[in-house]
């Protein structure tokens, strides 16, 4: 049995490479940093469009929609004891842009750059933070990002600068250290083994109930399950579906699911002659066994969804109702000049559910005579090939969506302002597939700056209709779901759509 004042989380920490909020990749580090640091604002875990105050007590959007002013709470202290000021907040954001690491992308998308960082992000006094938008965009979007991206947490600038080396803005030090104000203090991280944190007694919201939180590296789902059953861990992340299903039957265990902004998709490279033909893309669209996949493969990984905009957003249209239709696909293929199908390859991550989707796709493609070989690989290999635009079909996952805003999805999945190879817009999945539609691009750009919410909504719906008509190169199959399995006696563990799950209120009812 685990101690009653400690939370022990089993999960794979293979992708946990750095704790630096500016360079964080993957969801694991988001969850950790959400508890070591604080951000200006937070999203409500239940009503996910609702922005809640955190370090910022209040905020105001200027009338021209080009700047946002935050009023920060007084009396907040960092773990080091330093007071938390607006200067720290400004410095933290500027640091992200200057370092230009993984999480700078989203900021650069709003027009921030390393050069304009100091002018657009300013702290006139210790309690005031002003963010000026370099380009016209929806300020709501920026606030969402501040609430969801770990890059937006506030760092203890003094502490970090004390550990700076060769002008790296503390990057090396922050890889394995923390300088936050969050409810937990980082203790130790043994890579691929264990990460430990203890409660911060001086936390401004009041000390958390848990004394210690431990994250333990476990890759085998079976192992996680056995340890859950024996009560040796409290929470398990990333369990495989059969084990989750089995755990659902266990009365001492609860299974919690939370929807994420990403979608599982089948992507085709339009660069490939075959897929340049809309009819072929449409045929592939009819050769995916959406029902079968979502019923047999996806439970606990995702839910049925076929639109590029995340499920449940106000702008999201009803499902278009694509389904497996082999005769139609065959007809389309014949029209496109492939009556006997063709040979192709599917690149895919070798983990479930990707590989299972790919296997299903492989067998349904075969029904129309398309002979697809499956090339599995690590995420690195699959997305590496996609970024190089050297693939035919990929089964993958993506689509932004941390922010509950259609733009986040569309920008990631559909938007492609420059289709040249040299443009190297490798962070746009639209560019990776070489699919370009000027109308859609224009519409996305227009919607982003549309002030009238109603009109904006209509525009986003038009984008989805156009995408349906033009048969986009990325076909969503399922909206991502994250499943956490925990002991029944754990209270207040609320999974967050943006992975910023907070442990500050968690306790055990024993």
């Amino acid at each position, binding site marked *: 049995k685990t101690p009653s004042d400690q939370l022990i989380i089993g999960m794979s920490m293979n992708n946990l490479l750095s704790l630096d909020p500016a360079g964080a990749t993957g969801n694991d580090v988001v969850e950790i940093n959400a508890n070591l640091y604080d951000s200006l604002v937070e999203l409500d875990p239940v009503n996910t469009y609702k922005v809640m105050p955190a370090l910022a007590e209040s905020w105001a959007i200027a009338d021209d929609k080009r700047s946002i002013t935050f009023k920060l709470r007084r009396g907040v202290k960092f773990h080091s004891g330093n007071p938390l000021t607006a200067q720290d907040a400004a410095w933290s954001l500027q640091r992200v842009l200057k370092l230009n690491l993984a999480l700078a992308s989203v900021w650069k998308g709003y027009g921030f750059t390393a050069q304009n960082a100091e002018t657009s992000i300013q702290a006139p006094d210790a309690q005031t933070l002003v963010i000026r938008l370099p380009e016209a965009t929806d300020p709501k979007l920026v606030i969402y990002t501040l609430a969801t991206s770990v890059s937006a947490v506030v760092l203890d600038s003094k502490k970090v600068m004390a550990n700076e080396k060769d002008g790296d803005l503390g990057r090396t030090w922050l890889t394995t250290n923390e300088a936050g104000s969050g409810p937990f203090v980082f203790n130790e991280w043994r890579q691929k083994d264990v990460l430990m944190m203890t409660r911060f007694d001086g936390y401004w919201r009041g000390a958390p109930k848990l004394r210690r939180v431990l994250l333990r590296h476990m890759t085998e789902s079976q192992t996680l399950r056995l340890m859950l059953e024996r009560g*040796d861990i409290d929470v398990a992340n990333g369990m495989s579906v059969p084990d989750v299903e089995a755990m659902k039957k266990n009365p001492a265990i609860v299974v919690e699911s939370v929807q994420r902004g990403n979608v599982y998709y089948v992507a085709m490279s339009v660069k490939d002659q075959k897929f340049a033909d809309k009819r072929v893309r449409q045929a592939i669209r009819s050769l995916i066994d959406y029902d079968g996949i979502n019923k047999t493969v996806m439970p606990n990984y995702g839910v049925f969804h076929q639109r590029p905009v995340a499920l449940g957003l106000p702008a999201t249209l009803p499902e278009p109702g694509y389904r497996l239709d082999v005769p139609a696909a065959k007809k389309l293929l014949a029209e496109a000049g492939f009556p006997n199908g063709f040979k192709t390859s599917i690149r895919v991550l070798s983990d479930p559910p990707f590989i299972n989707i790919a296997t299903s796709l492989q067998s349904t493609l075969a029904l129309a005579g398309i002979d697809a070989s499956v090339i599995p690989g690590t995420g690195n290999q699959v997305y590496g090939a996609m970024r190089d635009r050297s693939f035919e079909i990929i089964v993958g996952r993506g689509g932004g969506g941390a922010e509950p805003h259609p733009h986040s999805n569309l920008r990631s999945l559909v938007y492609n302002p420059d289709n040249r190879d040299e443009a190297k817009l*490798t962070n746009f999945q639209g560019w990776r597939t070489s699919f370009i539609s000027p109308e859609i691009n224009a519409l996305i750009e227009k919607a982003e700056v549309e002030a009238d919410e109603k009109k904006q909504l209509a525009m986003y719906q038009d984008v989805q209709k156009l995408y349906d008509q033009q048969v986009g190169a990325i076909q969503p199959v399922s909206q991502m779901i994250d499943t956490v399995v925990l002991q029944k006696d754990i209270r207040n563990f609320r999974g967050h759509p943006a992975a910023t799950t907070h442990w500050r209120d968690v306790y055990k009812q024993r």
Partner: protein
Amino acid sequence: MTTLALPAFSSRRMGGLGRRLAIVAVTLLGLLAMTFFIGRVMPLDPVLSIVGSDADHSTYEQVYKQLGLDQPLYVQFGYYLRDLLHGDLGRSLMSGNPVTTDILRVFPATIELATLAILFGTCVGVPLGVFAATHKGRLGDQVVRVISLCGYSVPVFWFGMMGLIIFYAWLGWAGGAGRVDLAYDGLVQSRTGLLLIDSALAGEWEVFRNALKYITLPACILGLHSMAYIARMTRSFMLNQLNQEYIITARVKGLSEREVIWNHAFRNILVQLLTIVALAYGSLLEGAVLIETVFAWPGFGSYLTSSLLLGDMNAVMGCVLLIGIIFVTLNLVADALYQVFDPRTR
């Protein structure tokens, strides 16, 4: 699968220490060059691992340059060798930690596991082998043969999972995944990194017992293969000796069969046996990959595999170098054992 052969080094002519070391250096250099080359042709992109798949191109380029990947291959290798000569294995591309630190952290866990495994393998394998040899062709021999060949034939990961289900989930005899209960984690100060020794030194017998509970199952399963190997080799060495004339001499003297076997035959295979055990030990260190995965053992094997799959070639090179050195050292040790313990080579 690890196949072992007697060391090629053990051509027991003393080629002079200098020559020996030169050979070792050449071998290690070749090892590094090969690793380096593999690392470069591998379509694994360390930059992508660092920046994530959604980073934009400027970020990508920036990290690419920071890692020095824009330099020609031979220049990179040259830099690596230069640092190596200064005792610097470089930094892990992912974590930025010095590779040496990383390895020093993960290695003791594997050493602990492998040592226990080889102890198990030797303590069970040697008597089994001797038994089989003295019962050659009879039922006992066949039983030992089947047992030891089973040790060769069962996929170790399968065994690991089965062991976990039976001994941990059902019976509760073994600890689960990891090295020790989390409640005990961090209780004893790490001196050697070997938890059993550290806890014993600190007098924390509670922790010691707990760690022992955790390590026993993976060690036994890991040791199974070497047990099989050691048993077979012991049998064959023993048979060789038992056919020798001096065994008859010993019997003629009126020694009991036990004395003949243990005082005469076994003494003669001791050196060979130590060589085999040393080599089996070397291969255990690297063979731990699968077991470490199943038991979430924070060791060298899983470090190496995950570094490899992330394209962190600095870490991989460090690991490979270490394994190479261990192998070469074990070979040299095996040689030295001959020199020291076998009067014929003195």
